Structures are given as C-alpha cells and as structure tokens.
C-alpha cells in the first residue's frame, strides 16, 4: 500500500486522540507501520481537537501534520462550518460523519457529491455509544465504520485495539458499538 492518512476532527472529551491511537494499534496488529499523534494544544473539554493517523507498509519518517488526508472522520457535526474539516481531502478519499441526519440535511450533499460512491457515510455513532456504552463517546463506533467503509482493517483488529484501550464492560460496550457501526455501513446507503 501507499501511505494512508486519516484526520479526525472532534471536540475535547470525545476521545478524538484516543481514536487515532486505537486506529494506529489496529494497523499495528495487522503488521503495518502506523503513527498517531494529536494536533498539539492545551486540551479543554469542548474545544475543537484534531488528531492524525498515518498507516504504511514501511517505516514512517514524515512528522508534519496531515495536510492531504485519504480519510476524514468528523466526530461532531457542530464543527461543520466552524472548522475546515475537509481541507486537503483527496478526491478519491473517504468521509465519515457522526450524525443521524442525512448528508443533505447536514448541507454536505453538494460539497461531497464528487466523491466516489460509498466513500461518504453518515453514522449515528453517538447514539450507538449511548446504547452500548451508556456514554455519548462516538470514537469506537466510528472506527468500526471506518473499517467497514475503507476495508483497510479487519474488524477483529479494531476490536483488539478497542480492548487494548478499554478493559472490561466499557471495552465490551465499545466493541458492540463499533460492530453495530461496521454492520451498518455494510448496507449501501
């Protein structure tokens, strides 16, 4: 593979940094090189947060922020319009948005209509997290959806990465949320 770069947008408290770390662990478990890092800043609840993950078959030397992502994950739709979340997104890239609304209702249909079919998906990750984890933390569910949409990772790796970060019942709940999102995106939108 050539290097695959993911940029994650969310707000402080939504596990944006943890999501990138879990993504890197999942890729590592598949024998790949992966580099996850936050957009460095003083972390505050609710403030916009960006994190990054690079995945490659060879060691990664590059240390710049991801300028041209292959995939963008938006954990919080209130960032749309406030932060240029799709900046630099590759034309054949992927987009995952955490929402129960449609792309059209979100006002994204026109902006993303050139993207390949199936590359842009909306997932109700917060609702899945509330149902399975009991807390509105959408990160694990979005990773499940990411594996489903991109085919870059096996679900088993995502599950193992989630369990690496979250033990016991919290881990179980997050895995269930991720599985539900993975199954959800398997059905064409």
């Amino acid at each position, binding site marked *: 593979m050539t290097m695959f770069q993911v940029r994650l947008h969310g707000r402080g408290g939504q596990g944006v940094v943890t999501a990138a770390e879990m993504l*890197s662990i999942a890729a590592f478990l598949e024998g790949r090189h992966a580099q996850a890092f936050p957009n*460095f800043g003083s972390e505050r609840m609710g403030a916009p947060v960006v994190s990054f993950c690079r995945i490659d078959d060879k060691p990664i030397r590059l240390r710049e922020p991801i300028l041209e992502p292959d995939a963008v994950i938006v954990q919080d739709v209130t960032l749309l319009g406030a932060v240029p979340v799709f900046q630099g997104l590759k034309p054949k890239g992927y987009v995952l948005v955490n929402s129960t609304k449609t792309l059209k209702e979100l006002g994204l249909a026109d902006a993303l209509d050139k993207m390949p079919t199936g590359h842009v998906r909306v997932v109700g990750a917060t609702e899945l997290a509330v149902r399975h984890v009991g807390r509105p933390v959408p990160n694990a569910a979005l990773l499940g959806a990411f594996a489903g949409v991109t085919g870059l990772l096996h679900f088993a790796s995502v599950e193992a990465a989630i369990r690496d970060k979250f033990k016991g019942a919290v881990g179980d709940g997050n895995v269930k949320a991720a599985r539900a999102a993975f199954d959800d995106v398997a059905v064409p939108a």
Partner: protein
Amino acid sequence: MLKQIEGSRAVAEAVALCRPEVICAYPITPQTHIVEACGEFVKTGQLQNCEYVNVESEFAALSVAIGASAAGARTYTATASQGLLFMAEAVYNASGLGLPIVMTLGNRAIGAPINIWNDHSDAMSMRDAGWIMLFAETNQEALDLHIQAFRLAEQLSCPIMVCMDGFILTHAYERLEIPDQAAVDAFLPPFVPRQALDPADPYSIGAMVGPEAFTEVRYLAHDKQLQALEVIPEIHQSFKEQFGRESGGLFHTYQVEGAATVVVTMGSLAGTLKDAVDELAQEGPQVGVISLSCYRPFPRTELRHALEHARRVIVVEKAVAPGAGGVVSMDLRMALQGVDCYVKTVIAGLGGRPVTSPSLQSMLRRALKGELADLHFLDLNRGMVDRELARQRRGIATGPVAENLLKDAATHGAD
C-alpha cells in the same frame, strides 16, 4: 518486544529497564507522561528497589536528584521548557559536581509569550552547562538513548540530558521495539559511583574551589566532554551488537556521500527532511542530511570530516539566538573553518509551527539556486511582521506585541 506505544510511555519503560533507584519528579505542566508512567511502575511493582519522590518544584526535582546521585543511587528525572529554567542553578551543580544523572527533556519553547509547543529553546538555554546533550530523531532512538545514557553517564561520571521533541515525539503512538530486561542488564552494568557520600568514610562533594584550581576543574569538565566523543561511538557500537539496531552515536548521515548540499539538523525534523530531500531529488540533485544525535560535546572534527566535500551547508534549527542567528550554525561554522563551503541558517518550527515537507522543499530549491539569505526564517509571515513594525514606527505606546499579532492574525488570517 514490538509494541504500538506512545513515545513518553516507551521512554518510561526504557528508564524502568535501567533499574533506577531514585526518580524525582514534579509532575505538573510543563511535563510529559514519562514521570507519570514511572510513578505507576513503582506503585505496581513493575519497577522495584526504586524510590519515587514527588517534589514541590523542578528546582527541587533536580536538587533531590543531585542528593540521591551523590549518595550513589542511579537517578533519573524529566522536565521540559520553563521547568528546565526553574532548575537552572541545579543543572550547573549536577555537572559541576560530576553526578551521572539522566534527565529527559521533552523539548518545548520558552515563554514569554506563553507557548506550550515544541522547539529547542529550552535545550539551547542550557547548552553550556556541562551536561552531555543527546537528541533523538525518532521515538525508537529516544528509548534506546536512555539505555545508552545511563551507561555513558556512569562511565564518565557526567549528567546527560536526553532531548526528544515535545508532542511530536512524546505524544506520538508508534511501533517500537521494547528490549527485554536480560538484554538491558547485559548492556548496562550495575552502577559503581566514582564518588559517593558514605558516613563511614566521610568526604565532601561540593567543596569551595578558589582561583587556585577553578580553571582546572572547568578544564577537566571540558576534557570529560572530549572523552565522551570517544566513548559515545564505542557505546553506539556495543548497543548495536547487543540489540541489533543503530541508535545514537555522534550523528546520522543520509545521502551525504557526493552531495554538494547538505542539511544539518537535530531531532525529529530529520525524518521530514529525509522525505523532502528524496522528493526533491526527482527534479534536481540529491541533497544530504546530517542529524546530530550528540550536540554536547559538539563533534567538531567528525562533522568537519563528514562535510569536507560539501559546498553548501544549511543548518535547520529550532531555536533562535536573537541578535545573533542560529546556535547550531555558530558551532558548525567553527567546525568548518577553512573548508571551502558556506553555512546558511534556517530557523524553523518555533513554538510548534509545523515544519512541512513542501516548505522545506521550497527553501531547498532557493538554496540550490543560491538565493537563500544567510539567516532565513522558514514560513515567516512577513506581512504580519511588517504591519507591527509599521505600528511601532508610527508611535511609541503601541501596546504588547503578542496581543497585536494575535489581533493581526485574526484580521488577516495566515496570509
């Protein structure tokens, strides 16, 4: 064992494998996750026979480290940024007394203005304090350098600062090889102190020395650094034999053979630079890269040898000496006296400004055309600077610069 792990945590694991007997920490910002993880290891018993001392300031952290080391204990601490400045007096004491303390510096900018992000200003502020200063290019090297640092420090009885870029390395999750305990034990012998306080056989460490011997004490400190230039390559080789990988040494060279233009840098910037010069080589000549893993002592002769065929040397450094230029460049110019080449200084990545491959390539294209100024600030927002200078020319009471520039950025964006 291969692990996908955060840089800070990996360093904590490496430190624990070195069996320190005292770890002092002031775990409040600016700090890294390293001491947090060390504390956890002591509590869970993963790290045994180690006293973890929570102190009340950075000054206390290094002072307790000095006491512990003087008592003959293998001692570790970590800091960053303003924390290093606050321990400044103790920094000089540790080296002046010749105590083999190992300290991680998670490199960050120094205020004012307040800025928590990465650059090398903190390390540069202590560059002449008599510590050996090692810089890690990657997290694997950061981890490995800590294991080497204890051996080097104890062999020479000299404190060592292991510098790793704050956030860029300390907060990055990557695939790293964590050595096993037996291999580290084989590489790092138990600490036999050159001096240790012992009530049964008393002597003083830290006697007052007047003009009759002060110069000689300082000369010996200089000589110790020169000895390090011999010992570091030996430890590098021995590490390679024990662990099967290259880490540390005096500096790393990349595509330097035959290159007329060579970029010299320190720390994690080297990775992005290597990608940048490789991409640039598709349209022009191959530019070489040297990254210093040892900054103090400065490997003057070795660098001169490595650069003797270069015609253009560009030093990309993450700190600025206002009114003078670049600090690493000054050292390098001294090393290259008489060599037929010029040395240009590029100041980059201050206060966490991302250093991108496109920016580096555009700077290198200018350098290859001979258009680079002697002192160049990468990605400097000239408009922002000029507007502030214009304000200052118009009046005297123009207000705080930081505030003015933040307002300017809000008005003009990043143009």
